[in-house]
């Protein structure tokens, strides 16, 4: 059973990774190249932030490595979230079989991207953060942990309240933990930035990034739900066939007996 769960997670990850790799190749890379030309045109402020003077190498190497990174990222998320975590948490996730995959996908998005973005929204290159990298990494991981905790609490609250009070209080109770996240983000360090990219372009970039991540999790969850359905349909059918075989056999036996 564990292996079947892991295989489904890996397959969902492969689909998600492929989709996200395509997204990076078709949208991410060209958009970033464009942002970089605008940036050098606007500010004359070279794109050397945090990358020091190291040779970046040909642009294509970075593009290919980024597409590969996107694929691996999708496979990693699929394996961890839909392989291992789904196996462990399936009994605790509320909802029917199909919904569970989507709930886990939504939680994954909130944990990996949504919650940390409340504090540090995605930025195009050229927008430089003033805070030190290690401070940001620490807060990013902290927000991710808070997002995961909020999802867990919401699930727990929903299951408990659903059994005692009914659906509406359960939904309300599940919504409460998420209200803590914006408060936590407001308590976090202010993230001052110095930008050499026009605000409209930065906004477009941010939205494309959001759509990319939502899309990645949607593909992961949909593929996983589909695989689950396929495996579930496959199983009972075989046992049904067995039992019908047995009954027809029994019937013929009875007929012969008569």
């Amino acid at each position, binding site marked *: 059973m564990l292996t079947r769960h892991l295989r489904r997670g890996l397959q969902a990850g492969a689909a998600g990774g492929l989709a996200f790799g395509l997204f990076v190749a078709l949208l991410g890379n060209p958009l970033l190249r464009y942002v970089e030309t605008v940036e050098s045109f606007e500010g004359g402020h070279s794109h050397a932030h*945090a990358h020091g003077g190291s040779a970046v190498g040909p642009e294509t190497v970075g593009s290919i490595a980024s597409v590969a990174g996107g694929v691996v*990222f999708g496979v990693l998320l699929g394996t961890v979230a839909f392989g291992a975590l789904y196996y462990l948490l*399936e009994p605790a996730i509320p909802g029917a079989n199909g919904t569970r995959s989507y709930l886990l996908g939504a939680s994954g998005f909130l944990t990996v991207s949504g919650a940390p973005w409340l504090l540090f929204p995605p930025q195009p290159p050229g927008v430089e953060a003033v805070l030190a990298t290690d401070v940001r990494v620490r807060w990013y991981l902290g927000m991710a942990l808070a997002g995961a905790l909020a999802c867990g609490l919401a699930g727990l609250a929903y299951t408990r309240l659903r059994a005692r009070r009914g659906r509406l209080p359960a939904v309300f109770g599940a919504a409460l933990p998420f209200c803590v996240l914006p408060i936590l983000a407001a308590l976090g360090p202010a993230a001052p930035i110095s930008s050499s990219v026009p605000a409209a372009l930065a906004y477009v970039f941010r939205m494309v990034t959001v759509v990319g991540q939502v899309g990645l999790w949607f593909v992961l969850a949909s593929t996983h739900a589909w695989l689950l359905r396929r495996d579930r349909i496959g199983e009972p059918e075989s046992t049904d066939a067995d039992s019908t075989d047995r009954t027809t056999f029994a019937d013929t036996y009875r007929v012969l007996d008569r």
Partner: protein
Amino acid sequence: MTATDDSVHDRLADARIALTPAQVAVAITLLAALGFVLLFAQAPMLHDSMHNFRHAAGIVCH
């Protein structure tokens, strides 16, 4: 398939039977290493080559 296991605790117990601690350790180490290289590695060569990916995924810890 799910009829026999109905709690997270049972799943954990099942996993403990199916996997050896060494297998779990190797799997976690591999996944963590992969995640670290993708997201947080600051070594210039790795970091720069996946610069676009990190921006496109909205990961800003760099």
